């Protein structure tokens, strides 16, 4: 991604690419982070699943990985080969090819980027292995590349947040703290939210999903929109940045300025419990059980819906400390 921004100079781009391959040292290992493939000892009836996770770039992703590993176990009737791609497409393609060679029953993966999968997807199709996409989607020329996709509905998350605001603070003057512009989570959460209560949004700024930039944006918003009394942040981290900015300005987050966020990571829920957030819509990473059910249906040859939406919850300040402590992410 960094390449494309530098790409103006062709030479630079080429140099960068060649360097990138250099830095992928250690990628000679057959599968980085592979958790022992049990090729020989197949227990009869177990579904052989090859799962390629894109990496572990955030707490959300780690929780997602843990949930998948915890549900696709031998006891539950799965024989899982899990490979962490460490956020490199070449690792992921390699893992997918390994899965084909191992002749697994189902391949599941979360693509690290949308494009560049044509060849390997065609190979998977030729090998007649059903493919399940998890969390993210692909953009490919291969026809009908996957049987089903499972992930979160960002638009619905935005809608849920909007409906809470409409019900509880219908006159709110809202400042919207957007995620990285153009990302799926930003575009769709905004769309869903504004569908419901767009007229009340008086200002917006991007905080790039980070605490630091969320804080900076809210510092500015305090002067630019002095009458704002509700912040809708596209993720918890920016909401936490907003809390810091509000407290520094002598305002009480959750009281003077209400905060509604999406994600539901532990830090965010803690802020909710402490009364600094008012409402948190979950973006649930722990959908391993839903994935397991889906994989069973695919294996049994049942027709599955093209899309499976992960069940998201939403929390208000009545959340209990026990619930937060039990949170794995």
């Amino acid at each position, binding site marked *: 991604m*960094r390449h494309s*921004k530098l790409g103006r100079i062709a030479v*630079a781009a080429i*140099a*960068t690419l060649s*360097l*990138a391959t*250099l*830095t*992928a040292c250690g990628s000679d290992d057959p599968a980085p982070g592979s958790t022992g493939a049990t090729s020989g000892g197949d227990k009869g009836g177990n579904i052989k699943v090859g799962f390629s996770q894109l*990496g*572990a*770039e*955030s*707490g959300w992703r*780690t929780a997602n990985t843990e949930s998948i590993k915890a549900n696709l176990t031998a006891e539950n009737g799965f024989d899982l080969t899990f490979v*962490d791609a*460490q*956020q490199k497409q070449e690792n992921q393609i390699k893992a997918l090819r390994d899965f084909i060679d191992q002749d697994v029953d189902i391949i599941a993966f979360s693509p690290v980027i949308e494009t560049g999968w044509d060849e390997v997807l065609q190979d998977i199709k030729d090998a007649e292995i059903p493919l399940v996409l998890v969390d993210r989607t692909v953009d490919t020329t291969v026809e009908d590349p996957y049987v089903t996709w499972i992930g979160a509905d960002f638009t619905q998350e935005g809608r849920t947040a909007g409906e809470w605001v409409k019900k509880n603070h219908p006159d709110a003057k809202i400042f919207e703290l*957007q995620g990285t*512009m153009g990302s799926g989570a930003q575009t769709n959460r905004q769309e869903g939210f504004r569908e419901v209560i767009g007229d009340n949004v008086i*200002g*917006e*700024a*991007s905080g*790039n999903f*980070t*605490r*630091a930039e969320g*804080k*900076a*944006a809210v*510092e*500015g*918003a305090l*002067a*630019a*929109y*002095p009458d704002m009394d509700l912040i809708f942040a596209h993720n918890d981290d920016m909401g936490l*940045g907003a809390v*810091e900015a509000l407290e*520094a*300005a*002598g305002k009480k987050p959750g009281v003077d300025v209400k905060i509604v966020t999406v994600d539901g990571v532990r830090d965010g829920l803690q802020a909710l419990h402490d009364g600094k957030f008012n409402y948190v819509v979950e973006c649930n990473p722990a959908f391993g059980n839903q994935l397991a059910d889906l994989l069973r249906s695919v294996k049994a040859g049942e027709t599955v819906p093209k899309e499976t939406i992960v069940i998201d919850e939403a929390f208000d300040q009545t959340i209990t400390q026990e619930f937060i402590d039990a949170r794995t992410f």
Partner: protein
Amino acid sequence: MSGPTVELTPDTPSSPPPAQPAAQPRPSVARRIMQHQLFWPVVALIALIILCGIKNPTFLTIELRDGNLFGQLVDIARMSATPLLLALGMALVIATGGIDLSVGAVMAISLAVSLTYLDGAANPGSVSTAAVAVLLGVAVALAAGLFNGFMVSVLGVQPFIATMILMVAGRGVAMLITQGQITTVTSAPFKFLGSGFVFGIPTPVIIALIMLVAVAILVRRTALGMLLESIGINREASRLAGVQSRNITWLVYIVCALLAGLAGIVYGAPTMAADANNIGLMKEMDAIMCVVLGGTALSGGKFYLSGTVVGALILSTIERAVVIFHIPSQITPLFKALVIIVVCVAQSPKLRELLRDGAAKLRPRALPEVAS
């Protein structure tokens, strides 16, 4: 207004107009000010601040809360600390005719090392542990600088390529250190570096000021600054004249990386999250922009620390103005680009000639060229 003015004062004495030939017919004071390389950047900065102030009068207020300064201008000063730290080192490197593209990645490595150490430490809340964490982070930055300097000065690799190695590989290193996770820890003394106050002034501002003064003394109160410029003008001629080109070039890459390491720590301290993918991303471009906005030419041979300070302030003021002017997020990049284009065009020697007009055109002079 006191926020930015405070930052400017210590730097002013360190920037004698080095480019102006001494034997000149005395131009009028107004004209001398107009022709100073800082004139247009300062005008742009003040104009931005005034426009924000008109749009929103509270923008200009600075209040004292619990003995600490608060206000939009204070925020801007605090936000300027990171780009300034990077740009100070970058200005020195650019003066030698080089460039350091690795500063953003060095930020990520330093912060990753510091926070990973804190994460594993028995008592992350103690001052001594935090101090060790900072030292470790800076030490790793030192190693990065040694590497960059070695590539450029000893092996003679083009600076653009030599530092691009770390720019790309550095993030990989940071990812290895954090094992691909976002490491978060809690340590009050470490956090203080990013969001604390000293004598009512935000700590990052103090740190940036100390470094600014240190660098200014290093290059302007010794011959080092002149030697840097001579290397930037003609490396070989400087060497033949007895300037230790190799060692000095090596040194500036080390200084640049050290400042970048410090910038990483200051930037990451408020949130205490070592996000190897995002910390310092594209910050090398910010640093180069600060240096160029301040009137330093990318061709080397000349540099202005005071201009660099103004450049950093402009950059963070634009960042804030976007919110103050209620600019929709989709067009913020366009707005930023427009302001920067205006500043760069205003600095262009051609335009200045047009402005200067007539008789003044006859005087030959070395104007700072602006790479835009």
